């Protein structure tokens, strides 16, 4: 794979994975009311 391909793929993967982990961290450990019954 070319350098451009690697850059595109890793940027996209890093972005969505980081966002995914960040969001669930905020839901589980933040002061969100989502999990409160």
């Amino acid at each position, binding site marked *: *794979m070319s350098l451009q*391909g690697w850059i595109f793929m890793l940027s996209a993967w890093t972005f969505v994975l980081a*966002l*995914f982990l960040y969001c669930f961290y905020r*839901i589980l450990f933040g002061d*969100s009311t*989502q999990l409160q019954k």
Partner: protein
Amino acid sequence: MAARAGTALPLACFTWMWCHRLSKYLGVLGLFLPTVILIYYSYLASWTLGYSIYMVTDQLPKVSDTGITKEDLSALARGEVSDNVLANLPITRVDVEAFQQGTTTSKMAEFLKKALNLSDEKIAQLPPEKRLKTLEAAIVKEKIVTPFDNARKAYIGAVDAQGNPVGDVYRVPMFAYLVFLGVFLFTLYVLWRGVSGGIEVLSKVGMPILFILAVVLMVRVFTLGHPVSEAQGPLSGLAFLWEPKWYVERDGQQRFVLFDPQTWLAGVGQLFFSLSLGMGAIQCYASYLRKDDDVVLTGLSTSAANETAEVVMGSSIAIPAAVTFFGVTATQIISAQGTFYLGFASMPPVFEFMPLGQILGMLWFFLLFIAAITSVVALAQPFVAFLEDEYGFSRSRAVAVLAALWLPSTHLCILLSGSLDVMDFWAGTFGPPLFAFIEIILMMWIFGGEKMWAEIKHGAQINPPTFFYYCAKYIAPPILAFMLGFWVWLNILVPLINGTIFQQGVEGQGTGWTVWLTRIYLILLFIAMCVMVRIAFKRKRQEVAS
């Protein structure tokens, strides 16, 4: 907005945001679109479960039946065409050698035309380095993938036992029908159990399974190595997906990809369907949030989870596996035939070449089934919620009414040729961007962008940058309007000008009676829903007055 409006339905949200008698009829789309998508998508979901059972019970065709082995594929990747590969094909070694030397025999031209839909002009323009790869792709498609596509057609009863088309009315095999009934009853059960007892439990169990299966399949694909050729591996598949192609050919001219409306149209279509935007399903789920719940965090986490499954996991399974065994050119041609072709026709032969392929194939189709069934339940919920909220029906009564509408309607897709595609064309492709356009105009321009922004930020842990406010107010509406306009131009006006619309129909499914019947059914369903909404609102007004 649905949560703030205290309603489960886009149509009630619309009337809350815009006090006008037209608003409820615009909102009918939020009921019509998910219900139509439910009607055909539930049948598609049943295919994935049926294929999962087919994989484990070994009922699909075998590549080995055609006499092709992994060694033949390796030879093909090196540019050698073995006798096994040529057996039962309409071309001979003489045609292949002539083609390799730059001469296209009439048999070869016929073969390429049939397999890849290439015109004589296109064949003549093929550069020497692409000739062999094109031939390889045609052989893979005709010899390996086509038998599996025929098996898919046999699964839905579109062809008879000899592989001949059965005509306008499909003869659906009992197995496919029973699997659909199973999916139908299971969905009704989940809906009947309610939002927290059914839908929430399904998601809590289904989503972790989906992620685990995806990781298992990803690991398997990435550890495949180079079983066919050193030049073909999982990384070549990722390269095919991720290496940017800056120019595309349109009407014989090279065009910068970001200036090409078709690229944007394809992106918007994928985005809407994968995130269930503009279908009314997300609004319905959102209505179960409490008033002070964090809409920003919920929306962001939903999108992030979906994109992780799609961009990271989805892109690392089917295409890399297909490229590893069939090469880039063949995979490009296979994927251009559509999702059904890639999923149902190219993946089973790929699994056959893998160790433990039967089990992996079963897991792959089961993964697709979980993804589909959770969407089916989401699509069914708006109609059930409408009957509960607006007509005061009990949960079981609302589910029974949905079942009475859904089961006969899906029989159109099960039995009639082209019916599923007609429904998908209007409800799955055209409907969501149209509905999204109406929603954003209502929210940002009629209800008021400032009020909307304040609602979004209410209870939000993450403060959304103001940039998104300007995006929603000034950038998204013209882009959506342009996309819709271009879609109408490409799918309706150009075929009308060319005259192809009179043979192929707007939906590309011809103009036969099955297509007309489906169109008439969709119009009647929309009118019926408008009447239901009118009656519901009338009743509500009378209740308020009394």
